[in-house]
């Protein structure tokens, strides 16, 4: 029995649950208590589903007592980003337009969580429809970074990252369209993985950009991410873009990597994702991490991906184009918010306009307008068409780079967490946060961010690892090796250095 169940990694908590010295009800209640204690300040959750979670926990405990064979993570509570639909639990995607909507079905990944017996603690805050890098675009208020409550927790999945960093949940689900798992991971000192496109079912993810969206694990350790990734990943016949092949062995790769031997591994440093525009402390930690990896036997080489400099431009055409179409269904006709025009006739067209006008926030409208324009007759070839060509060139850059190196690495984000409001009025500055994470989404390759130290400002920095499509196991091998070596020098997890949050009860 440990003093504070919320400080355990998911793997350690699961081990206690298996031996029976901790019950899932105890573990779940401990996390619900922690949410009650600190979420007033952090505001990671939009909805806490305590009863639902405890019911699952009781069920798991009973099944375990009956000697049933359970999933390794059975009974370990989890938080779910509010962009993932959960049957019976309100789902808003951070938007007013879905306020009060209770989905009648579960996302495939949620079905898998429930089937494995993970109590769902609640739904986490996010930028509206996952559009943003700071969670400031949520229609329901900011989430604070547990390292400094005056700073952003990254975005769009700031709620999931903050919940894990603040020990409100050992595990969380995020989604990553241009960096929304990895960048929050970097600025909160947590681990986030964007799987290979098609590796985790998108069925039940409220789509922003269908060809870029991918759900993945948000955790405090690399091993926990592997455990969760294996649970939610794998083929789903309800998602046509889901890969119909078994996942690589991720947990094994994480365990193997933690042994610390990277001999024979070639690591490519992407020239275009380093140097100018990166905060000094970020670059310094990155360089140190490379030395650590070399110390574990890896060979470090430099690779160039010349078309990456067009990635941000291509991304801001493809993503809004798809989003403008994906978000068309929010019209007040079938679900969610419905606004009738104040005066004049109540026609379908006018109700749709009033609903969308009132229900969507500024960033969402900005992207819908961008995308609608980019897809318009006469502009399609110049914008969407050209962007798709750039995408192909970026995929070729990756192919060439992976012919030289087993994995590619870069800092995850150019800076540490910025203050609230700092970039809110400058969309381009906000978009630049994702410059290092976007190429992976455009090419469909998997990526991980893990903490690799603190910058000069005392805030966490993230290290990004990218692997070829369907070779997600390489992320875990390299990530676990680096994590183990760094924690060895730090004398424990980086999060141990985060300030204690004031308990509000």
């Amino acid at each position, binding site marked *: 029995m440990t003093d504070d169940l919320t400080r355990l990694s998911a793997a350690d908590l699961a081990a206690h649950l298996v031996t029976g010295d901790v019950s899932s009800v105890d573990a779940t209640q401990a996390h619900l208590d922690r949410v009650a204690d600190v979420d007033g300040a952090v505001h990671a959750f939009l909805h806490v589903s305590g009863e639902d979670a405890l019911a699952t926990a009781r069920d798991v405990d009973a099944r375990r007592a009956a000697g049933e064979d359970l999933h390794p993570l059975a009974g370990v509570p989890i938080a779910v980003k509010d962009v*993932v*639909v959960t049957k019976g639990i309100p*789902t808003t*995607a951070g938007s007013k337009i*879905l306020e009060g*909507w209770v*989905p*009648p*079905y579960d*996302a495939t990944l949620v079905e898998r969580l429930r089937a494995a017996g993970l109590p769902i603690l609640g739904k986490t805050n996010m930028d509206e429809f996952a559009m943003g890098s700071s969670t400031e675009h949520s229609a329901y208020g900011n989430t604070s970074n547990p390292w400094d409550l005056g700073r952003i927790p990254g975005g769009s999945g700031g709620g999931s990252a903050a919940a894990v960093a603040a020990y409100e949940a050992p595990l969380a689900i995020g989604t990553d369209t241009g960096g929304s798992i990895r960048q929050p991971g970097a600025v909160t000192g947590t681990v986030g993985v964007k799987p290979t496109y098609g590796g985790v079912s*998108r*069925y*039940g*993810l*409220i*789509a922003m*950009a*269908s*060809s870029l969206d991918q759900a993945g694990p948000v955790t405090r350790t690399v091993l926990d991410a592997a455990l969760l990734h294996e649970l939610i990943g794998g083929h789903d*016949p*309800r*998602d*046509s*873009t889901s890969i119909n092949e078994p996942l690589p062995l991720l947990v094994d790769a994480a365990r193997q990597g933690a042994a610390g031997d990277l001999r024979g591994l070639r690591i490519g440093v992407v020239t275009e994702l380093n140097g100018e525009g990166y905060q000094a402390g970020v670059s310094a930690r990155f360089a140190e991490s490379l030395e650590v990896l070399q110390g574990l036997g890896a060979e470090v080489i430099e690779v160039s991906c010349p078309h990456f400099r067009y990635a941000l431009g291509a991304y801001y055409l493809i993503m809004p*184009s*798809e989003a*403008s*179409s994906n978000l*068309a*269904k*929010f*019209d007040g*006709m*079938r*679900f969610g918010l419905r606004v009738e025009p104040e005066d004049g006739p109540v026609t*379908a*067209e006018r109700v*749709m306009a009033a609903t969308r006008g009132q229900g969507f926030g500024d960033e969402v409208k900005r992207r819908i307008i961008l995308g*609608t324009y980019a*897809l*318009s*007759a006469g502009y*399609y070839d110049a914008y*969407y068409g050209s962007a798709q060509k750039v995408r192909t060139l970026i995929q070729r850059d990756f192919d060439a780079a992976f012919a030289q190196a087993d994995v590619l690495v870069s800092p995850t984000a150019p800076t540490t967490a910025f203050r609230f409001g700092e970039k809110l009025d400058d969309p381009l500055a906000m978009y630049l946060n994702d410059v290092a994470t976007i190429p992976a989404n455009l090419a469909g390759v998997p990526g991980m961010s893990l903490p690799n130290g603190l910058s000069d400002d005392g805030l966490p920095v993230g290290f990004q690892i990218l692997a070829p499509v369907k070779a997600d196991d390489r992320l875990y091998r390299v990530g676990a090796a680096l994590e183990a070596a760094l924690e060895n020098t730090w004398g424990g997890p980086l999060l141990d250095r985060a300030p204690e949050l004031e308990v509000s009860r």
Partner: protein
Amino acid sequence: MSTQTQVDLVDYDEAVRRYDPVIGIEVHVELGTLTKMFCAAEVEFGGEPNTQVTPVSLGLPGALPVVNGKAVEYAIRIGLALNCEIAESCRFARKNYFYPDVPKNFQTSQYDEPIAFDGWIDVELEDGTVHRVEIERAHMEEDAGKNTHVGGATGRIHGAEYSLVDYNRAGIPLVEIVTRPITGAGERAPEVARAYVQTLRDIFRALDVSEARMERGNVRADVNLSLRPTPESPLGTRTETKNVNSFRSVERAVRYEVSRQAAVLDAAGTVTQETRHWHEDTGITTPGRVKSDAEDYRYFPEPDLVPVAPSRDWVASIKASLPELPVARRRRLQQEWGYADAEMRDVVNAGALDLIEATVTAGTSPAGARKWWMGELARRAKQTDTELAAMSVTPEQIAQLQGLVDSGRINDKLARQVLEGVLAGEGDPEQVVVARGLEVVSDDGALLAAIDDALAAQPDIVEKVRGGNLGPVGAIIGAVMKATRGQADAGRVRALVIERIG
């Protein structure tokens, strides 16, 4: 430009003397799959509103489409039957527009990559003339839901108090077949248009890809028409008349547009390129509403679906399994049955082909089967204004009836009475014969008694016959037939009379 309140029309015959009509037809057919195009919602006609839906067909947040493999197979069947190329790989696209009957506010359709393209089909007019129609493409898409406007006088949206949407139809798989401009039909353009749609309907049924019931909207046609001064002139401006949903209407709509456009051109006006509505009741077309965001559907490839890439082996196996198509079948049956061209055409036009084939299969000669269906039954069908196939008699019963005649148990005249009994629901011909006591009297004793009575009543006839004049025998036969209420075999009576007189 003239704003016409009173629409001028040029007499059709006059119009086609001076202008060459060019038609183009888009036919939508609802596929008869068990489930929808992109989800497992079941499809059944006439269900309670909004009961045949899933998160996918309701367009709920998070839902994703998956292509129905059966629908792809059906689309390929249609493509192959229309002599099309089948794409090695093709994609779906999103057609974006806001309308409440489209749950996602985009329709998932095929745009620049149809599954089938570059085909043709021969259509036969009623007089046997064959016209080849070239097919540009056949592509897959999903149907929209159905709006019902409540509270207005017309059932249209204008003046309605509110509207209801039923999403049962939303997501039902459709194949849209688009022709190239159909030229060279001249004055027969309306007939060609009708025959083309009818031919497609027959093909859909033969392929078993759709119930293809026009009255249920399983098959819907949009008719494009333009006029040009001569067949050598460039194509004129076309109009598209939407939702022309019966064969007869297809023909009428083409005729109407020819007359209307001719009047516009005669007045030195320009035909407006537009969508028009067909009015079944008045037989006219009127301009459709001009959409504000005219026609920019912002098509782009559907990112939620991977390309459809039917393997060549699969396409080959579908091709091998295609049933005989209607035209080929008609040719084969005509040859087997030895019908003349005109006879065959009449059979087809009367809707008697399947009935005759089944009757022949049940053992009747082709001539015998045709005699019943195109004679007595066709006459009765016409009298009661019913379809032949809807008559309450089966091909098997007709075969049994003819069998009774062939075996001599009844004669033609009795057979008509038996048929009457069958149609009245008295059972199979055998049962009617027994119940009504209609069997031919073949008992010589009974016949001889009747003959003796007749001879005794007309002694002069006996003398004449004995004198070598066989003519008056007929009178005796008539009397015997009358006495036996027609149930005697006339041939046998004749033989017995002659024998009796000696």
